[in-house]
């Protein structure tokens, strides 16, 4: 359990985290979303006391992290996988970190095997690829088998096997009743693994809700994708209050506010051909984009317009 109580962090003029209050509960994977510069990493740094909050308090497992008896066993952290000494081998890196809570060779070898680094463990970590470095960062977080896991973009740079492994691991950890806070910009990945969501923008809390509530309340629910040579005739028949139709080309359109049953029945009644009729569930990506549309810190050149 992580209890965040009114934390604010300012760097000079810049307010990185703005009066954030939330509780990250055990037993579920909590996804942490927000645009670049929203304050996710800063919040995580505040939780483990790397940064002092300008105001507010954070408690991990009932006390301030600085008062942990066995810090690594309480909280496993992956903040910046590149934060390793380039000249030290992966094995020595883990041995040095583990030694602070009496973890020795056996567990280090075990964790190296878990993340698949055994064969390169003797090599300097500075020479590791992005994904190998990320695996080492994950190994540090898992080293003392912590009750709380805080992972900042853990799948960044991981290959597909690595991503699936992390997904299975997080699910297992949640089932075991541990607390997991996970940030990622990969919405599809987040949708697969997170049960609960925290969304921040410009340092402020925008949403603190379950995944399913977030998707259904924020977006316009399900959509129906239709492919039909008679699309031109079918579309006017569907027109009704609350139905929004977006046509992509002459034979294809997407409709929201209407079910696939209704579309299929209407087509049958009017003798119109259907080549494809699919219900697409709203994605986290859409819901997220909708929520954060005005909150993005750094907007790229252009933004894909959303089919509303």
């Amino acid at each position, binding site marked *: 359990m992580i209890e965040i109580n009114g934390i604010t962090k300012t760097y000079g003029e810049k307010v990185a985290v703005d009066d954030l209050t939330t509780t990250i509960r055990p037993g579920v994977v909590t996804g942490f979303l927000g645009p670049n510069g929203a304050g996710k990493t800063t919040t995580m740094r505040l939780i483990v*006391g790397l940064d002092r909050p300008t105001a507010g308090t954070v408690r991990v497992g009932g006390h301030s992290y600085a008062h942990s008896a066995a810090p690594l066993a309480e909280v496993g952290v992956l903040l910046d996988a590149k934060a390793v*000494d380039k000249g*030290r081998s992966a094995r020595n890196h883990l041995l040095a970190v583990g030694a602070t809570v009496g973890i020795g060779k056996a567990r280090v070898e075990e964790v190296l095997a878990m993340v698949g680094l055994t*064969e390169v463990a003797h090599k300097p970590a500075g020479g590791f690829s992005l994904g190998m470095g990320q695996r080492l960062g994950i190994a540090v977080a898992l080293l003392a088998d912590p009750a709380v896991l805080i992972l900042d973009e853990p799948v960044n740079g991981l290959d597909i096997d690595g991503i699936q492994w992390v997904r299975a691991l997080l699910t297992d950890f949640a089932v075991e009743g541990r607390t997991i806070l996970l940030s990622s910009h990969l919405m599809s990945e987040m949708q697969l693994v997170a049960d609960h969501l925290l969304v921040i923008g410009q340092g402020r809390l925008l949403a603190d809700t379950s995944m399913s509530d977030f998707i259904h309340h924020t977006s316009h629910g399900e959509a129906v994708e239709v492919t039909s040579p008679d699309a031109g005739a079918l579309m006017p028949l569907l027109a009704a209050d609350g139905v929004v139709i977006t046509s992509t080309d002459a034979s294809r359109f997407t409709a929201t506010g209407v079910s696939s049953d209704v579309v299929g029945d209407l087509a049958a009644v009017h003798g119109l051909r259907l080549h494809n009729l699919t219900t697409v569930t709203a994605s986290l990506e859409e819901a997220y984009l909708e929520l954060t549309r005005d909150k993005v810190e750094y907007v790229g050149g252009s933004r894909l317009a959303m089919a509303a």
Partner: protein
Amino acid sequence: MTNQTNPTVHSAFDDRAHAERPAADSPAVMSAALTRTRVATHKQTFARGLVSEWIKLRSVKSTWIGAGAFGVVLVGFAALGALLTSSAAGAGPQMTDPLSTVLMGANLAVLVLGALGALAGAREFGSRMITTTTVAVPRRWKVVVAKATVLTAVILPVSLIGVFGAYALGMPILGAHGATTVALTDPGVLTSLVGMAGYLTAIALIGFGLGMLFRGTTGAIAGIIGGVLILPMLLGSLLPDSWDVVLQFLPTSAASAFTVVAGSGGMVLSAAAGVVVLVGWVLAAVGGAGVSYVRRDV
């Protein structure tokens, strides 16, 4: 662990990925649930912090390269100094005392140790490893004290070996050429040698403090070179003689109170006072580094 050995770096990841909620007896899969009960973690203590810092210090090449360079400089200059002095000795009375001759490399070697200390203090800030360290040991003073302790435990023996090595190599050379020599049993000689090792260690610790304070080696090494070499010379020539009282409190001058056998008349500090002043500098540097590390975000 796993039965199948996969030559790629993915082995265990693969096993986990393809596992659909493994049966408890499935041999090919290491479940996070299984590992949990087997991890014996203990309280974070100062002693464990020491072990961690020792592993860190010994597992980077620069520590041993620096220590080696120090030894080569100190012992090499001892031989060189002894040879040069002996060849000049025939001409007339010896100008310098034998101990200064064999420890002639100390002026350079001290900079090597200062740089080694600076690196020990700054290194983790450069690599950002300090974030991992601070998460592992959130009581930050423990980190500073453990690092300083481990550095001392490495540098002091290395300094002693270097200083006594220089003595052991240099004196016989002087003796063989008929120049004046001193024995370890002569008054003040042993104290001077041990004192020199202590001085070298102190400068390494001051370098460590500056490295950690500035969070970088550049400023710290500049500080060491400035404070040890340039400042004493510069101030000594610029300031009027009445200021000599103040100059005695610079680290190098304070150390000369206990590293030189035959004092030059102008010495102000006693050997004991010299030790106190030098220790004061070390405490100031390491303490300053600690206060800064404890107060600032990492």
